[in-house]
């Protein structure tokens, strides 16, 4: 596993939006705004549930087919966890603005846009979840995502969590997995060649990153107070929890 900087997040950064979040991890910085439930356009209106609209904006230039692909993946998984049935005929709009992407030192890229790929998915996903929490949109559960690449080495293969652009180029396959806070698999997208055994390994690695503490469920609350200040969050769920803890404490300072 590569050593990556701890994720950072700030909630409610945009004053006008209902909810917003800024999140940076592994070289990616994403800002999200959430508005909703608001009135949906007639063509998006659904009689029994809210329409979740996800818009991904690249750091430079306008979005293309890749962004639409990411949007459709995010949209289908976020619809699963938002309680869309609570708001029929309405719209929940999530705008994700990519601000920074890690640079590939080996290739001289002139455009920042270059290409969007799976490695940005966790950043997009986590930002969207944090912004939804900040907007107090009712949800079934929280969720976290991680990306794992299978990189070939001489004679063997290794799994890389949050791969760098260089590793992505060399990777045989890249996988995005998202887990809800109950530890259920929410999203699994893969690209490249891989075997079932490899996927199983990838699954376990990703589960470890997303919800390590959920598997040893009993001491979640205790870990909250002791661990995350000095050692950094144990996993992504823990990270989201500690971020929200600060926000709730600030909001309810009068209690």
């Amino acid at each position: 596993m590569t050593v990556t900087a701890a994720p950072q997040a700030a909630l409610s950064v945009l004053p006008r939006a209902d909810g917003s979040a800024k999140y940076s991890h592994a070289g990616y910085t994403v800002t999200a705004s959430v508005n909703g439930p608001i009135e949906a356009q007639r063509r998006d209106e659904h009689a029994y549930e809210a329409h979740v609209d996800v818009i991904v904006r690249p750091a430079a230039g306008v979005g293309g087919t890749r962004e639409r692909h990411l949007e459709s993946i995010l949209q289908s998984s976020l619809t699963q966890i938002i309680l869309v049935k609570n708001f029929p005929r309405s719209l929940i709009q999530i705008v994700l603005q990519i601000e920074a992407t890690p640079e590939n030192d080996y290739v001289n890229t002139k455009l920042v846009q270059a290409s969007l790929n799976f490695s940005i998915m966790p950043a997009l996903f986590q930002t969207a979840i944090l912004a939804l929490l900040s907007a107090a949109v009712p949800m079934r559960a929280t969720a976290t995502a991680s990306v794992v690449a299978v990189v070939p080495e001489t004679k063997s293969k290794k799994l890389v969590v949050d791969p760098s652009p260089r590793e992505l180029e060399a990777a045989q396959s890249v996988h995005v997995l998202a887990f809800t806070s109950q530890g259920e698999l929410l999203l699994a997208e893969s690209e490249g060649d891989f075997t079932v055994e490899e996927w199983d390994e990838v699954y376990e690695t990703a589960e470890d990153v997303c919800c390590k503490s959920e598997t040893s469920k009993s001491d979640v609350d205790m870990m909250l107070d002791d661990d995350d200040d000095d050692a950094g969050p144990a996993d992504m769920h823990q990270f989201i929890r500690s971020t929200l803890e600060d926000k709730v404490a600030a909001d309810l300072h009068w209690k």
Partner: protein
Amino acid sequence: MATAPLLVLPGDTIDPSLIPTHRKQPLRLGPGLRHIPPSEIVPTVAGQLVVDPKKNSMWVEYNGGRYIPSTHDLVIGQVHRSAADLYYVNLSPYTANAALPHLAFEGATKKTRPQLLPGALIYARVTLANRHMDPELECVSSTTGKAEGLGPLTGGMAFDVSLGLARRLLMARNREEGRVEVLELLGAEGLAFETAVGRNGRVWVGSESTKTIVLVGRALKETDEGDLTVEQQRKLVKRLVKQLR
């Protein structure tokens, strides 16, 4: 609260020992919780879980997001347009308009009813809040037939505040429970003004003098944005009043 604040995230399991039990009253679930039959209670928003054993109720306290109408809420709406027998009233931007019947005012008949132009502010109570229907409002108590303070708000100005502050201002004992004293302090400084607080995050301030309106509005805004404590609110009021004179 006596116990340590308990943070809940959507989908967390709530310890059964925290759920209050009462011999007679049924358990009441407030905002932010949902009941999955038969016996699961799950939070749907991030916030602090609050339990009131006396009323046998529990809810999640949070701040933020968009106003979602619920019955008996007092709200400040802006008239959007008038139809044949009702006004369409806007409660928060970009949401479906609420309906306010022309006859839902004190003493209103077909011939005598308040003529409200688009843009007029009204203080109303939500009578119908249903996910499948647009909300409905009234400016008169349906039991007594009296306005009870509801109705058109003339003059003055409406300020947007967070839903959390609006809720604190609406608490019966907002000084002790909500820790907002800024309005009382401004009143004690000799400023004459009246306010109406809408649960949808709008506060209307009315006064003879425009200076007072702006000052009260600014004080509320700063209290909201700066998360001021009671002590800081006192300082703020002193500063603002000094500037006024």
